[in-house]
């Protein structure tokens, strides 16, 4: 006598539970399809446009961020290094190479949610293309670590937490470029963790 309601209940639980769980997972996992991935760096050039996919539109409706327009720039974020390991503030990293053509770029450290972490007093909150020193071939080397480093240094928070690196290119044709194979972002290598 209770068989039918039991089956109905089971079907409904799977429907609602599965539907909501997969939706939340999909929305939290990424900002939709249509990503450009260059090494460790990922960007979503069409996330703010009307022809973004439904996942991207749902994600931006929940995130409430002011996205960059196509003619403004393109924001790349890295949550893992080139080796696939998550970025942690207790480790030391080195960013080497060149960015795709852009008039200006900025680089800063954000927490896992993409918000800027507490800037450490007296230390630079980020780096940009105007202030870094370059190699003779105009590439650059940036050390990312909690302790002071010589050369270009991007400070990390002193504790041990997951961080995201945000490299934003301003006035760049990268977003609309069809020749993506020629574009390359800097390499992001992990040098060591802790005091190793």
């Amino acid at each position, binding site marked *: 006598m209770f068989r039918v309601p039991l*089956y109905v209940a089971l079907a409904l639980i*799977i*429907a609602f539970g599965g*539907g*909501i769980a997969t939706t939340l997972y999909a929305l939290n996992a990424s900002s939709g399809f249509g990503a450009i991935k260059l090494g460790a760096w990922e960007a979503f050039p069409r996330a703010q446009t*009307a022809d973004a996919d439904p996942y991207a539109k749902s994600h931006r409706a929940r995130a409430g961020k002011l996205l960059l327009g196509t*003619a403004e720039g393109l924001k790349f974020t890295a949550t893992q290094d080139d080796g696939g390991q998550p970025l942690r503030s207790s480790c030391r990293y080195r960013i080497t190479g060149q960015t795709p053509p852009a008039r*200006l770029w900025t680089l800063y450290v954000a927490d896992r949610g993409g918000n800027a972490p507490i800037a450490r007093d007296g230390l630079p909150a980020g780096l940009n293309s105007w202030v870094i020193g370059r190699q003779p071939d105009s590439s650059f080397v940036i050390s990312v670590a909690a302790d002071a480093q010589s050369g270009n240094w991007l400070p990390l928070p002193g504790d041990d937490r997951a961080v995201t690196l945000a490299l934003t290119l301003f006035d760049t044709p990268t977003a609309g470029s069809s020749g993506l194979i020629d574009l390359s972002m800097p390499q992001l290598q992990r040098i060591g963790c802790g005091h190793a």
Partner: protein
Amino acid sequence: MLKIVFTVITGLVGAALLHLIIILALPHFTGLDAYTGVLAKGDLNRFYGVGKRPDGSGLSDGDPFLQSAVCAFDIEDQPVRLVAGGDVPFWSLAIYDSSSNEVFSMNDRTSVDGGVDVLVASPVALTTLRKALPESLSQSILVEMPRAEGYVVLRTLSPRKSLEDAAQAFLAGATCDAFAIGATPGASSDQ
């Protein structure tokens, strides 16, 4: 046994349908999207600065070298004219509709004389304006926007600390006023 399989399949189909419905319907009622945040800043037709950390409106921009300001507008009755000027190394603006779809964006490289001078109007208003373009709009960039409600984001960079004051002045002096069609030339737009 078969009944359990059917039950599970029904459940999975339901899950897929629910997933689809939520994804497609979500943008209409989150209340967390950027347009709601811009409206929460204050009045229409005024630029408000955006801080580095989320404030009451929920908007923020964590980039330490980027200064932004937002202005919500409604071009149902009158177009809106965006004007800003100053000595900054870079500025960019983007116009979004109320669903945060990008309508138009530009940066200072494509500006006429280095300053911001953009008129956003509905297709009907733009046709009226183009028939008899006022003198004051001769250098303006005219943007057509089919939907009435939207917002503008104006950004400028201060790569060095010494340039921060100029960036703040640029954003503080930016205006987002309604433009009266048919006003006598030179009367309302002495910016």
